């Protein structure tokens, strides 16, 4: 299941305070993409995109492969030059600045550890390029290796390390120069699930304790939701929606975002009336009119979609008592027991399959719902989101 951690509050200097510089008009973003387009021959990888990333922010670019998110990051690192538009860091236009003169560092998806160098030499490589004194290099390498819990591994070669350890070396190597922005290209993709979850928390901790700006590229929406302050969902070289994990999950702007982030039931419907805060809709798959709260401007007669997260759909054997609730009937066609949750696939009378999630709060239930049971699905008007796009 998706656990949208509330990251509005971020520990800084021991106190928890709201971290939301994007809401403050007096703040200037540290990184700015201004109308950036990148074409590779006929293919447009990034299409007129604008974006600002603030200092100390953990920003995630999320999208399917080929959506242009990696290209966008590589333009900040300096491996690609924009076809059109500008990339700025602070007040500096980065056009024409080669990668080795940019104060950003990148952690590569493949880790790109130098196989002929020890862990120490890998991490020290960047500092040596700056011709720092030997004693300072040694001190900073030791410090960063302690930070990623790899002290004692200095003499190992990359092929003598496990996948998780290699990931830490790559992280240490990109951190050691204290870049203004740390770029993470699918940093956790190669780790197994357990290690990935642990590392997510470590990354968050590292980012807030070092007070650094992180920009991450990922195709994994759970990962992005877990670690990021803000997420930009990308598709076909454009940003479809940008916001905090909670905003994106609870208020998806389009059908694409609703479908891409987490599980969703999408009901295509036509608006028939407006009733106070509620929009009344009629869909082809559920006989009763549907009600959903919406502040958006929705015209009567418009074609919309109602996005409904499975965990907001209640599944019961008896008809729900509350008359304000939307409800429909169906038959249980499938049950996926996930331990913490069970996902029920319910076939409606119209043939459509609906997903409902139920947390397994007790070990035994009085009325277990099982295959082929006739059930009621119900949800409050506040549960669904009306999507016009």
């Amino acid at each position, binding site marked *: 299941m998706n656990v949208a951690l509330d990251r509005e509050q971020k520990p800084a200097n021991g106190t928890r305070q709201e971290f939301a510089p994007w809401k403050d008009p007096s703040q200037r973003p540290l990184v700015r993409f201004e109308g950036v387009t990148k074409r590779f021959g006929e293919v447009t990888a990034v299409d007129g995109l604008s974006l600002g990333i603030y200092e100390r922010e953990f920003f995630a670019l999320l999208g399917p492969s080929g959506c242009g998110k990696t290209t966008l990051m590589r333009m900040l690192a300096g491996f690609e030059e924009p076809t059109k538009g500008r990339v700025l860091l602070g007040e500096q236009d980065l056009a024409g600045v*080669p*990668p*080795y003169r940019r104060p*950003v560092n*990148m952690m590569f998806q493949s880790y*790109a*550890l*130098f196989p002929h160098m020890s862990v120490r030499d890998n991490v020290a490589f960047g500092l040596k390029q700056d011709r720092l004194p030997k004693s300072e290099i040694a001190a900073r390498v030791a410090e960063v290796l302690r930070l990623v819990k790899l002290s004692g591994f200095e003499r190992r070669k*990359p*092929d003598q390390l496990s996948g998780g350890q290699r990931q830490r070396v790559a992280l240490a190597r990109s951190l050691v120069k204290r870049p203004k922005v740390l770029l993470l290209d699918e940093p956790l993709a190669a780790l197994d699930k357990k290690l990935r979850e642990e590392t997510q928390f470590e990354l968050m901790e590292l980012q807030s304790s070092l007070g650094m700006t992180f920009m991450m590229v990922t195709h994994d929406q759970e990962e992005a939701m877990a670690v990021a302050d803000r997420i930009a969902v990308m598709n076909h070289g454009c940003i479809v929606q940008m916001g905090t994990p909670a905003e994106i999950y609870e208020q998806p702007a389009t059908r694409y975002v609703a479908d891409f982030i987490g599980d969703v039931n999408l009901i295509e419907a036509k608006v028939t009336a407006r009733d106070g805060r509620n929009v009344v809709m009629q869909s082809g798959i559920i006989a009763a009119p549907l009600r959903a709260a919406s502040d958006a401007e929705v015209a009567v007669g418009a074609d919309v979609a109602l996005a409904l997260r499975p965990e907001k759909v209640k599944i019961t054997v008896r008809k729900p008592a509350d008359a304000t609730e939307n409800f429909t009937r169906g038959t249980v066609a499938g049950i996926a027991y996930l331990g913490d949750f069970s996902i029920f696939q319910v076939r409606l009378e119209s043939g459509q399959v609906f997903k409902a999630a139920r947390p397994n709060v007790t070990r035994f239930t009085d009325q277990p719902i099982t295959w082929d049971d006739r059930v009621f699905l119900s949800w409050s008007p506040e549960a669904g989101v009306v999507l016009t796009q």
Partner: protein
Amino acid sequence: MRKGLSLFNVTSLVLGFAFLYLPILILVIYSFNDSRLVAVWGGFSTRWYAALWQNQPLLDAAWVTLRVAFVSATVATVLGTLAAVSLVRFGRFRGRTLFSGMIYAPLVMPEVILGLSLLLLFVAVDLDRGFWTVTLAHVTFTMCFVAVVVQSRLVTFDRSLEEAAMDLGAPPLRTFLTVTLPIIFPAVAAGWMLAFTLSLDDLVIASFTTGPGATTLPMRIYSQVRLGVTPEINAVSTIFIAVVTLIVIAASFAMKRQFVADCTRPA
């Protein structure tokens, strides 16, 4: 595993190896022949090896050959590596196919034609034929072998390693010297050894491009054989075989180490 070790397999294996190595084996055996007559066995002796050290023309030729091979292999390795890097790195530039085709052409070009054209060139530019013309000629025809070996290594080279080096502040040349070259070094070394052995045993091109005072060992052997095979020639040939074999084994070890390193590198 005894599977597949049938009589047919064993026979064809033995025949195949006999076909390949019997002539060489006979040459090696006769180099230890005490008799002056090449085809008559007169007991074991190393006297021809001792006699070699008295044969000044032969020693001179060997010295010329080693110098030519060393210099030409080194130059060919530098040029061939650069050619391989530019072929792999610059993607699809205009005329890339033509360029790569032209690099590989000497691989299949008849040596006689290559030698003749080089001779014509040296005559046309009025270059005195001798040590340097042979060396230049050998650079020309061994360079493509180096390029092939290094290129095959570079296509599997993870470019993100170079990007990581640049990202960490290393300009392109330093990136090449500190990251790319050490990693592809076994392939470069193998290319050098290949060029060295090719130069060592070349007869045709050297005959065309050499001049007075720069007779290579294969040329010397060839000219002596025309006057009759002496056991001395067998001895020098045996030493030759030993040197070439050692270098080839070293080169294949270098390539194998590279291969193992590739396989164990984190994906």
